[in-house]
């Protein structure tokens, strides 16, 4: 079994906090929310403190922040229909580009592993792909309108140029570039309500998704000619839901993160709890079992909106909530 210890609580946001995001080296944590500010937190000695407040970028709630793979840029997505790209030089942030094009609230922004592509999604039902030019300009490379509703989130495969998005239309979709344009190559249907978030595992062969239907689902990719005999189409692999975790969460689950270091899955839920799951050792990869390792009850006073594993410290975790706070946690597992 495991335990989650609250290491510290970071206060400063005036309204609900929607998202927390670690930089690639795990030394800085960015958070954003209803007060239209981005706060960047870092360690000074033993203490975590607010290093910068980025307040001049957006007119409305900032829904999501995301660091570039090199760690020198931060992108923020806002309900004001824009995305800002901030460059970090000697600890100072400066807004270097504003990406306009979405019709209304932008829900997420994500950098591809190469750092040359950026994906954004919005309530306008579209997903946009932006190319970063050599002179740090951002050009729209594609507008994909595959979803039939509000697109809640999008993120890139950890090593390939494959994009995944999830939506209010209850589906998850994967995209790749084919003959000069981006197309949807897979649609994953199994959730009964809005899919709030998806995350790849370390190798990008599995996905975990969480939903308003209070379940967590694990999806496995089967490539053409797989030995299990799962049917595929053309060159694309097929994604199959191999595990559904239900009965653990009491309200909508807003966020999930799959640790690329420890393989643990963490969820943030509308019932104010943070939960950690672990794949049981020796379980059948085609029908894996996951067990609940730890629950932080009343981890926050209100809904937990976002959870994120530190990319370098395997047992470190950040979370944020409607209660306006950001919290850092240490996760410990005892061997029996």
């Amino acid at each position, binding site marked *: 079994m495991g335990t989650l210890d609250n290491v510290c609580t970071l206060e400063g946001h005036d309204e609900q906090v929607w998202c927390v995001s670690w930089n690639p080296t795990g030394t800085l944590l960015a958070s954003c929310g209803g007060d239209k500010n981005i706060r960047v937190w870092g360690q000074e000695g033993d203490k975590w403190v607010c290093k910068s407040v980025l307040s001049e970028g957006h007119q409305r709630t900032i829904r999501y922040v995301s660091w570039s793979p090199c760690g020198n840029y931060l992108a923020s997505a806002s*309900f004001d229909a824009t995305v800002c790209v901030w460059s970090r030089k000697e600890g100072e942030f400066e807004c270097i580009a504003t990406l306009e094009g979405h019709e209304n609230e932008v*829900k997420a922004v994500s950098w591809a592993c190469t750092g040359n592509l950026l994906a954004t999604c919005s*309530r306008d039902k579209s997903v946009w792909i932006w190319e970063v030019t050599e002179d740090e300009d951002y050009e729209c490379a594609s507008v994909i309108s595959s979803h039939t509703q509000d697109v809640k989130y999008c993120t890139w495969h950890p090593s390939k140029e494959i994009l995944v998005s999830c939506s209010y239309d209850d589906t998850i979709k994967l995209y790749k570039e084919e003959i000069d344009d981006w197309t949807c190559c897979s649609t994953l249907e199994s959730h009964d309500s809005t899919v709030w978030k998806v995350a790849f595992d370390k190798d990008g062969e599995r996905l975990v998704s969480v939903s308003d239907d209070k379940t967590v689902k694990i999806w496995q990719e089967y490539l053409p000619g797989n030995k299990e005999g799962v049917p595929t189409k053309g060159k694309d692999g097929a994604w199959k839901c191999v595990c559904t975790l239900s009965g653990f969460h009491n309200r909508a689950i807003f966020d999930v993160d799959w640790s690329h270091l420890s393989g643990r899955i963490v969820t943030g839920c509308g019932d104010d709890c943070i939960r950690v799951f672990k794949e049981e050792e020796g379980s059948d990869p085609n029908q894996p079992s996951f067990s609940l390792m730890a629950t932080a009850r009343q981890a926050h*006073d209100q809904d937990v909106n976002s959870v994120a594993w530190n990319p370098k410290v395997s047992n470190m975790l950040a979370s944020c909530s409607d*209660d306006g706070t950001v919290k850092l946690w240490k996760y410990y597992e005892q061997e029996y």
Partner: protein
Amino acid sequence: MGDSLINANPIIYEKTGERVLEQDDFDDNVEDKIDNREVFDLIRNINDPEHPLTLEDLNVVDCDNVHVNDDENSVEILFTPTIPHCSMATLIGLSIRVKLLRSLPPRFKVDVKISPGTHASEEAVNKQLADKERVAAALENSHLLSVVNQCLKSKRSSG
């Protein structure tokens, strides 16, 4: 605006009386739990977006469809649109949600839904009302916010 009323002549219902105050209400040592009636009192005087009437006048909300559990921090409201195709159902639901967002302690988990079987697009409306991200975005839309605030403005003295 008069000509575009969807239901120009709705049925009006008898109002519930004011909550009767009791000895305990004035006793500092007694803790008053938040109960069905208290939450009902919060929403009964919300104005209908279309008529000069309250949600209670129109029986859109009634005390029997307010379920509160103070200990478990839960509130569930079922509301009944005046007619099954009422295009204002989402707005009414949003007004209830916003009123409670402003009036209840944040520890409460609030569900606002249409009474089963009373509206043509029940599921769609319920899903929208449950999506807190959309509610948050709606409240940053100044036009929508002013419409909602109109509904929440304290009721005019009845004449």
